[in-house]
């Protein structure tokens, strides 16, 4: 019964928002630490940036960009829902949110490769 109730686009939108949020919370401190290497150990940062040139890492980076875009568009969906009222086009909003996120990831991947 429970799983039937949950099999709905807006439930999956919640799951995506939470997963992307947790992933970003783990990634952000690492990202900021690596960035600070520019000041403390530029050679190390260049080495790490060189590593990001490999196709596998580029693909993973694009996945992160999709997650960031998904958290952004999913968050905008929530803000609209909470501040502008309960509309009947929620599934459309979810579709837009996912679609835009995938587009952003693709644009990043095409520019990165």
């Amino acid at each position, binding site marked *: 019964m429970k799983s039937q109730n949950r099999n709905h686009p807006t439930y999956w939108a919640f799951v995506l928002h939470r997963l992307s949020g947790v992933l970003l919370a783990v990634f952000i401190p690492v990202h900021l630490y690596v960035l600070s290497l520019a000041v403390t150990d530029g050679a190390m940062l260049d080495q790490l940036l060189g590593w990001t040139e490999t196709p596998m890492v580029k693909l993973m980076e694009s996945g992160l960009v999709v997650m960031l875009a998904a958290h952004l568009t999913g968050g905008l969906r929530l*803000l609209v829902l909470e501040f502008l009222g309960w509309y009947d086009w929620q599934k459309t909003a979810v579709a837009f949110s996912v679609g835009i996120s995938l587009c952003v990831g693709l644009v990043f991947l095409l520019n990165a490769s």
Partner: protein
Amino acid sequence: MENVARSETWLWLAQRVSAMVLAVCVIVHIATMIYAVQQGLSTAAISARISGNLMWLGFYTTFVAAVSIHAPIGVRTVLLEATELPQKRVGLLAMLFGLFILVLGFRAIFGLYGMSL
């Protein structure tokens, strides 16, 4: 009880207001990433963009400050829902996490801003 409800309301509001700031920051960040990745990323390229540039300093300072408010509140919610940890401990962990992001972020930004080319 009323105090708990009040602090929950403030946390809710802080997360939404920081989300609004972040919405703008993340759009700029994604656009910058897509642009910057075309020229290839390097220490020199990153510091050339940020070093001595007040506009980027202002942008990234705002960005990091908003993240250090937004992320811990989200982490707090996840921990409260997913673990049995007491609320006070979760609150403390979330606050430490926020401070950690703030320190790491400001260290990186001000370091890059002050770097000589």
